[in-house]
């Protein structure tokens, strides 16, 4: 059983550098600050603002998933299967937005 004991597997990648994690942390804080400033100054119209904020949030979540959750360093099959299924399922929910916009353009109160 020696080849699958956790201790060995863990010891295989020790002494990992901490620098990338602090860089990612800094990047996340900076991106958050940018979001807050954009919203605070109301730089864009609401719909445009939504797009910009979501784009920044997707960058932030990619950093969190890739580095903090370590997915960048997992097997390629794991990366692709997990991320493709997640994005596909979430994208399906966009089907409701056509309806949300329809209510607006109908002028419903």
């Amino acid at each position: 059983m020696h080849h699958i004991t956790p201790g060995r597997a863990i010891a295989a990648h020790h002494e990992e550098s901490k620098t990338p994690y602090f860089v990612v942390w800094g990047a996340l804080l900076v991106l958050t600050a940018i979001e807050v400033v954009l919203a605070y100054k109301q730089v864009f119209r609401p719909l445009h603002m939504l797009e910009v904020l979501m784009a920044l949030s997707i960058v932030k979540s990619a950093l969190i998933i890739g580095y903090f959750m370590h997915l960048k360093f997992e097997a390629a099959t794991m990366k692709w299967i997990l991320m493709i299924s997640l994005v596909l399922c979430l994208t399906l929910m966009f089907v409701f937005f056509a309806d949300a916009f329809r209510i607006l353009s109908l002028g419903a109160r």
Partner: protein
Amino acid sequence: MADVAVDHIAASGVYEPSLFGTYSKKIGMWLFLLSDSLTFGALLFAYSYGRISTPNWPTPFGKSSIINATIMTGCLLSSSVTMVLAVLAARVSDRKKTLLWLLATMFFGTAFIVLHAKEWTGLIGEGLTPFNNPWAANVPQFGGTFFTLTGMHMLHVTLGVIYLGVVALRKKFLPVLLVIWLVGWLVIPAGSVFHTGIHVLLAAAIVAAIVLFLKPKIYDAHDVEVAGLYWHFVDLVWMFIFPLVYLMSTKVV
């Protein structure tokens, strides 16, 4: 002898290797997080649907709310870094540092919960409930979607802190949790939603006790890493709630 037999079977390829080339606990957590992200996805989409389709959606978040929410975001982001440091310390079997960083993560998580609870209390004080909206009476769904979404997230953070506490302190965490529950219940005024809400801690303590007594073990680096996955996910969800709920409804200019 049994080990040798199993080893022989494994070597001869009777058992398939894991699909993703990693241990099954981690795959289990990833699958749970995938399903959980669909839960949060549905709530976020429901909130956004209301936001888009309702012209007079309230924008109640003034300067102090935004500053508060930004500090909360900073707490969660910092807790993610301390969590990473805990995972790295666990990998090199540094138990003392692992414990220290896990406690730091729990501290930031608790700070988040306290700040959020304060903010909720303020909003409720202004008359916001799941069924009533003081700023625009014909948009009651603001309260409903707001409290469901942020409440679900707050529940996740709370359970995350407890999860980390169990991994860090094991059975020693149970009395801590029960004391916090009892003191919280007695101190929080009866009118507050958190007077009832704090019973989540009691329920979690019972579940944690069942796990800790039925399957006592010393949590290893893998357990810390899996707990970390959950914690980072909670952070990740907030990265969407913060802009969608708070930044899109600012009342500053």
